[in-house]
């Protein structure tokens, strides 16, 4: 009896999570997959017809937004690495006994809702707002200069909004490095720069890898930043999907675009993992 219970325990523990994912992820995904292959309209109803045209037409019409989303996702992710790495490094190696305080400060703004934070950026960046207003009255930037409704505003918003998800995994990887390993590198004639390049950086790469996965995907499929900060000429594929679902009620096109994005992200991630698989990265770094 107890042996039976012991062998069942893992399944019992997995059950709630599995049920949750089955109801709220697997079923909607299957429904959407089916929708993407249906034809018809919202008035007359839809029928399953293996209609590939939603894919062909969707990609044909919106390839600009798809490419823009991937470009914004890549650029914002790179910006996050550049900004986040020094922060993670500083907290991990110089944070001393206050590491958890700094981590809390880092997360503090993120206790405010994602949409609210983005809207506050809109206020901050607006044409006569807190940033540009004083600069314009001082004559430091021209009157017609604007940041809102540019791709820079959208990329900036994306980089800002997902930054903690980049910093935290990098921090975890850096924090795990034994300081004596760095001393060993110095003892073996490595300068500070060489110690960083040969030891710190390769040992932190698994964290960078995880951070990229956790930020690139949501940044690429985001629509809030583009709709709040981007104006009409910087729409991302997320905006198109949202619009097709909620405004045009063209469910097949919306679903087809969702799956296209998902497929692209999956391919991208596998290619990235293949090219930068952590073990291989470490092999390269050791040379």
């Amino acid at each position: 009896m107890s042996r039976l219970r012991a062998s069942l325990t893992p399944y019992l523990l997995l059950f709630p999570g599995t049920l949750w994912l089955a109801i709220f992820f697997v079923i909607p995904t299957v429904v959407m997959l089916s929708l993407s292959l249906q034809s018809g309209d919202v008035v007359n109803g839809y029928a399953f017809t293996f209609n590939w045209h939603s894919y062909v037409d969707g990609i044909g019409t919106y390839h600009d937004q798809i490419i823009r989303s991937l470009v914004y996702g890549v650029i914002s992710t790179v910006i996050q690495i550049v900004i986040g790495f020094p922060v993670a490094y500083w907290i991990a190696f110089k944070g001393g006994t206050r590491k958890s305080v700094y981590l809390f400060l880092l997360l503090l703004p993120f206790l405010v809702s994602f949409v609210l934070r983005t809207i506050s950026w809109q206020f901050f960046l607006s044409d006569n707002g807190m940033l540009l207003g004083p600069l314009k009255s001082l004559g430091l930037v021209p009157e017609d200069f604007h940041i809102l409704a540019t791709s820079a505003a959208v990329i900036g918003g994306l980089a800002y909004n997902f930054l903690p998800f980049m910093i935290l995994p990098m921090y975890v990887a850096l924090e795990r490095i034994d300081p004596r390993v760095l001393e060993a590198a110095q003892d073996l004639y490595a300068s500070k720069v060489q110690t960083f390049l040969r030891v710190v950086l390769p040992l932190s790469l698994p964290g960078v890898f995880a951070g990229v996965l956790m930020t690139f995907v949501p940044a690429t499929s985001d629509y809030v930043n583009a709709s709040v900060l981007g104006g009409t000429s910087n729409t991302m594929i997320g905006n198109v999907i949202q619009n097709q679902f909620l405004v045009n009620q063209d469910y097949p096109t919306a679903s087809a675009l969702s799956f296209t994005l998902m497929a692209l992200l999956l391919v991208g991630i596998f290619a990235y993992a293949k090219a930068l698989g952590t073990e291989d990265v470490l092999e390269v770094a050791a040379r």
Partner: protein
Amino acid sequence: MTEIQAGSGAAVAAAPVSGDVPAIELDHVVKEYVSHGEVVRAVKGVSLAIAEGEFFSLLGPSGCGKTTSMRMIAGFEDPTQGVVRLHGEDVTNVPPNKRDINMVFQSYALFPHMNVWDNVAFGLKRKKVPDAEIKRRVGEILEVVDLVGREKRRPKEMSGGQQQRVALARALVNRPRALLLDEPLGALDLKLRQAMQIELKRIQREVGITFVYVTHDQSEALTMSDRIAVMNDGLVEQLADPREIYERPASKFVAGFIGTSNLLSGTVQQITGDTAVLALGAGDRILVPADGALAAGATVDLTVRPEKIKIAKGRPEGDLSLVRGTVSEVVYLGTSNSYVVALGDGAEITVFEQNAHDSTITAERGDTVWLSWQPWHSYALR
């Protein structure tokens, strides 16, 4: 002969070979930290000179300043005061990567992302040694530490003993002028530790490099060292060769820290020739070599090693130190029997009796016994 100033702020001992420049020199070195707003003096003024090719140990309990002293030699800590010299050259402000010495770290500190070969080659690559020579030297040193065929292993795929040998090879391959070892055997089990002690000594003889060895394990220090600096509370208590440290401890601390020793105290009754007689209690007498420093009426602290004492039921004859007591503990240790004998005044003396002939024991718990030892086995502490 080495000069010893036990317990003083600057225990200076000249290098055994006079005239040569010492490989490593600490000159009145002090290290202070600020911890929680308080100044902590980890090293309170240490001076020592380590000769070229010497196996030198820094021995002491945790917190005695031995590791801090070593880290100042390596360059990981800057002395608050004093000078560090390597081969006569002041390196006090030289960073670790510019010092021609290498260190074997306590938990090895191997690079976890590199295999054995890359770990060992790291230093040579930084020194821009030509590839062909790196290949040859790494191959050679892996042979010395018996790791040929494991070049592609990662540290986490190896046992503690193997990792230890990688750490050793990684340091030795650079042919440093001195090797610092920070409790390198601490993580190994007893059998492996003893094997590695012999191995380390062999390697040191083969490569002829100065070894500075930090340990809290007195038997390890006695086994391997040419000389030992016993440290306590940020100071060197005694600096001498192992035999001297064991036979002639310079202080109560050294006597107590190195091996087992019996600390006794008595008043000088009379001095006969070159022997002082100490009274302990009724019928007991302890003989101590008198070297002119002892006068009648003086109180003397002395130490006797347990293996020097003979235990007997009858009163032995001769000019011996003689003490009577009751056996309070008998422990069978395999190679020896250990007795704890309670004296009349409450003091206890431990006696080791070698298990040379048969397994019978001389006395049982509760027996009254006579303990005796030669006068020269009493060592007066100053």
